[in-house]
């Protein structure tokens, strides 16, 4: 009998991805169009994950407005009540399954209040897609609704489109690395300044940092756009529609030696230079050494991964370089990248499927929910993905470029050694 339901879901909803995307915009108030619980669950989830306050408001659809309102009332009321207290540069409006089922016209509702408040709207029902698509759709909405088309390009201006799995520190590291080549780089969205876990002056009720709305509006002259992760490919293409003169480069991953090589190849090719800045050369040598130092342990290990598709791809590719055997990968949703994940078995499933795939496996790489599973089956665990309630500082986990790949390899190798001594 085919399993008709999810048991211990791995999948996170589209609106949750949308929230994170809008939190990467400075002074933004994310507004979830749904019942109050949709926003509340999401807020609590990310507050615990990031160990920091999360800005979000809700249109609080109730049993009456669920029937007689087409969205225009609750959305304009919400804007009225939000702007009574704060002055957001942007309201990021996104839907849920409830408001999509009743078929609200959010574009129309947004037009009604466009004089009062700048809004980006996006349809993200939770009965479709998942975290990655929710984030990606929101970025696409920001690109098409905010960026003002320009006739010329600035070849030195680089638009970076990171996927939802990249941690705040990873986004920052990628930005810094690009800056070394002399680019002006803008990440859309940029959670490296909002969800990086910094102590601000006081606790605001809106996003704590990120890319400014005025900066997004002026992105139209970006000469080069780099999208990272399959879920972001469409965002790059969307920008290319607005600015056909720009060059779009897409990378499925920037983890591991080969994919990081590809990343720098693009930057060097675009800038027409033969050697990168010295620190990059240095870090590549360190990664080469790390691969050699860790390959005994990693090469003898068997790993199961359960994470978002783009993250699973990046992890499996990077770990394969040191000889890891990836016996199974479980992803929550359909993605074109699933076919390219380097594993013996890739399936769309839940955490129960993970539990059923543990035979012969030594290490699990997955989220907090795998903690109980790992303990029960005496497996070692590397925590990645959402949620991570167990570890503080997860926003500083770095698996990208030569440097982060070193940390990833060392973490895994040390874990394998430790776990073999224990068992």
């Amino acid at each position, binding site marked *: 009998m085919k399993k008709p*339901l999810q*048991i211990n879901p791995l999948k996170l909803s589209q609106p*949750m991805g949308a929230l994170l995307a809008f939190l990467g915009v400075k002074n933004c108030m994310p507004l979830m169009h*749904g*019942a*109050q*619980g949709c926003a509340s669950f999401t807020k609590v*989830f990310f507050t615990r994950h990031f160990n920091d306050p999360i800005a979000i408001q809700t249109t609080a659809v109730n049993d009456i407005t669920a029937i007689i309102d087409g969205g225009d009332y609750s959305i304009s009321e919400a804007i009225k009540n939000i702007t009574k207290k704060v002055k957001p540069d942007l309201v990021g409006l996104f839907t849920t399954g409830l408001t999509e089922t009743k078929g609200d016209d959010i574009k129309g509702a947004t037009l009604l209040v466009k004089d009062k408040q700048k809004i980006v709207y996006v349809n993200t029902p939770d009965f479709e897609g998942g975290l990655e698509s929710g984030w990606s759709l929101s970025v696409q909405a920001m690109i098409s609704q905010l960026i003002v088309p320009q006739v010329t390009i600035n070849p030195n201006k680089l638009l970076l489109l990171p996927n939802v799995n990249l941690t705040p520190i990873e986004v920052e590291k990628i930005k810094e690395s690009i800056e070394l080549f002399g680019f002006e780089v803008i990440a859309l969205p940029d959670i490296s300044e909002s969800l990086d876990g910094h102590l601000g002056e006081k606790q605001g009720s809106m996003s704590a940092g990120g890319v400014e709305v005025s900066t997004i509006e002026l992105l139209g002259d970006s000469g080069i756009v780099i999208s990272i992760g399959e879920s972001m490919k469409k965002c790059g293409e969307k920008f290319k529609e607005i600015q056909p003169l720009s060059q779009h480069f897409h990378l499925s991953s920037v983890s591991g030696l080969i994919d990081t090589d590809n990343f720098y190849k693009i930057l060097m090719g675009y800038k027409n230079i033969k050697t990168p800045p010295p620190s990059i050369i240095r870090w590549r040598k360190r990664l080469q050494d790390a691969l050699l130092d860790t390959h005994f342990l990693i090469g003898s290990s068997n790993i199961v991964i359960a994470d978002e598709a783009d993250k699973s791809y990046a992890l499996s590719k990077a770990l394969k370089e040191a000889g890891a055997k990836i016996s199974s990968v479980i992803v929550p949703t359909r993605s074109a990248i699933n076919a390219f994940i380097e594993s013996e078995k890739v399936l769309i499933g839940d955490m129960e499927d993970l539990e059923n795939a543990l035979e012969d496996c030594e290490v699990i790489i997955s989220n907090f929910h795998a903690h109980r599973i790992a303990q029960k089956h005496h497996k070692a665990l590397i925590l990645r993905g959402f949620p991570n309630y167990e570890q503080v500082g997860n926003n500083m986990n770095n698996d990208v470029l030569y440097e982060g790949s070193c940390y990833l390899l060392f973490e895994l190798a040390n874990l394998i050694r430790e776990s073999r001594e224990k068992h």
Partner: protein
Amino acid sequence: MVNRKLIKELLSESACSHNKTKKVSCDKPKPGATSGGCAFEGAQIALFPYADAVHLVHSPAICLGASWETRATLTSFKGENNTVLGYCTDITTNDVIFGGDKKLEESLDYIITNKNPNAIFVYETCVTAMIGDDMDNVCGRVEQKHGIPIVVVHSPGFVGNKNLGSRLGGEAVLGHLIGTKEPKEVHPFGINLIGEYNATGDMWQYIPILEKIGIKVVSTLAGDGRIENIQMAHRAKLNVIVCAKSLITLCRKMQEQYEIPYISISFYGKRDTTNAIMSIVNAFGDEELIKKAKIVIAQEEAKLEDALRDYKKVLNGKKAILNTGGNKSWSIASALQDIGVEVVATSIAKATLEDIEIAKSYVPILIKSPANEQSKLIDEHGVDILLAGGRSLYTAIKKKIAFVDVNQEKKVSYGAYSGLINLAKDVVDALNNPVFKVVGTKAPWEIA
């Protein structure tokens, strides 16, 4: 189907004191100015602690994806602990268009075949209410086919807040489980614990004491709960509401249907724990039981004072401000006083009328608007420690005083006598920790 009449009744509960003065007790949430969970979350909080039942959420991804395995409600159940598992029909576009009835039925069959639970709770959510799935019909049919209780909880988030959802959960249990099984023998001092969810094992701190006195816990709703026990709840002699007031309707109805009286108590702090135990034995009015209770309480209090002695040396004379919500505004205050801390003020911004009344009897100053009053009170009274939610962390850093995040998920219990020792340790640790002063230090480039 969502029962509008029932919801109206639950919202104007006659046993709630505030409903004597107010016409409409619970207002609709305001768009753009609302926080807090929905009715489904309330039902989840109330019922998920039944570890021997599967909890199937009939919804798309958002309802359960972000909310399973989030609560530290412990269980002693030896089988598979369903409290920490997440079952979801994962409604997709197809189901929205063609209906989710079939998927629900297949899911129930799958669960019964593969997991063999003692019961299944099925939660209705916003989308499945909107698309009009006839859940009562499907579940009734499957229940007949397999012979295990399948309880439909009509708790779509849009009907109201968490509190209402807990009530709806209670109603489902009352209508479908309570009174469906008879015990072999009826204990003369049997009680039901209502609204105790055993977060961090709170109830395990006081149940052994009750048992020592001769009181038997017949069933719970729903901390460390079992389906079989709640089915026999109608044979208990007393309903004990622990802190949470949301299930008062259930208790009133049980009084009407089964003539079971109810009392409402708190197990936080020494005085309240003692009062709670005495309230229970007094409700039975049995001389022997009361005598036994007094002896056990004396022993427990002496043991506690012994354990608290060293902590009290540090805590005596320390001043605190408490800024939290609901019944915590007084229950934690009372507990703090019991470990020697002077509670200067407590916030009532998020408390009910009843909570405010009780808070008055514990704390001299009630804070209506923490954002405006908190800092001033810290200065005026020389407060040493602030116990509040994360939002107040900045106040603590600015004022360079110790801070305890009372809203953060706790790992240890503060319940009953022994939990008080955990609280004392945490407060002492916070007072001794220099971190708030260090973090508040100006950077070299900020010094003028």
